[in-house]
C-alpha cells in the first residue's frame, strides 16, 4: 500500500525571491491588477510506502532548510494497483 503525498517547497519569508518579483511585475502588464506578495516555489508529488519518512526526506534532499520552507500538503491512501 502506498500513499500519495505532495510536498510544497517555497522560499523562506524575508529572502528575496526574484522569480516571484518577475511574475508580480508581469501580471499588471496583462491587465491583472491588485496582486502582491507573489512567490514561486515547487511542488513535489510522490507515492511513498512509509510517509513517516517524508520529513527526513525534506530535510535531507527535497528542500534546503536554510533558505526554503516545506509543507507536506496531503497524504492520501492509494490503491495498490493504481498507476500514474
Amino acid at each position, binding site marked *: 500500500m502506498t500513499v500519495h503525498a505532495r510536498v510544497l517547497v517555497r522560499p523562506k519569508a524575508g529572502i528575496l525571491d526574484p522569480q516571484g518579483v518577475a511574475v508580480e511585475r508581469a501580471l499588471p502588464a496583462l491587465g491583472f491588477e491588485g496582486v502582491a506578495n507573489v512567490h514561486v516555489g515547487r511542488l513535489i508529488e510522490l507515492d511513498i510506502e512509509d510517509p513517516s519518512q517524508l520529513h527526513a526526506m525534506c530535510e535531507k534532499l527535497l528542500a*534546503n532548510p536554510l533558505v526554503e520552507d516545506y509543507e507536506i500538503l496531503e497524504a492520501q491512501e492509494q490503491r495498490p494497483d493504481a498507476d500514474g
Partner: protein
Amino acid sequence: MKFGVIRFPGSCDEVDAVLACEHVPNASAQLLWHGDPDLHGVDAIVVPGGFSYGDYLRAGAIARFSPVMESVIAFSHAGGLVLGICNGFQVLCEAGLLPGALLPNVGRRFICRQVQLEVVHSTMPFTADTAAGELLSIPVKHTTGRYYAPPEQLDSLEAHDQILLRYASGANPNGSSNDIAGVRNAEGNVFGLMPHPEHAVDPLTGSTDGLKIFSAMAHAHG
C-alpha cells in the same frame, strides 16, 4: 602535488580546471569520476563548475550525494584541501562543507563577464599568493550565484575571517550578501567561490590572476 578534479554528469569546466592545475609548476591533475568513491591518492580536490546532475531540484543538491562526494567529505574532515568553483561551490554548500547557500541572481539573468574581486584575507592555503586588498580579474558565469547566509552567520563569517574574496566595490553582479564572492569553512581547508579562477590562467584570455589560487594550494601542500 596531484590535484583531483571531480567530473559529474553535467560538469563543464572540469577540463579547464585540470589545465589550470597543470599550469602550476610541479603539479599534475587527474579527473575523478563521480561514481567512483576512490580518490586515487590525490593531494587536493577541485569540485568544478557546470550543471551537475542537470542542477535538478536545486543546484548541487543531487551531486552532493554522489559516491565520490562521500569520499570528498571524509577527505575534508581529515584536513584535505577542497576547492569548489561555481557549481562546485554550490555542491559544497549543499554538502554542508561550507556555510550558506547560493540563490538565483537578483537580476534573474545568466551573467557571464569578467569581474573584479578584492582579496579580503591573504592566508594559507588558498589566497597566500595574493595580497590583502589586491584586485583580481576573474570571470563569473552563473544564474544561481547570490550568496546567502542568515545575518548571524554572516557576522560569524566576518568575525572569523572566513570571507576570503569579495566582489570589488560596486561590482557585485548577483546581489550576494556582504558582496561575498568566496568563503572558506571554519577549519580553513575548504574554500568555495562563484568566479572561475580556472578560466583566468592564461594571458590569451586576458588575466592570469586565477592561477594564484591553484599555486597557493600547491605551496600549502609543500
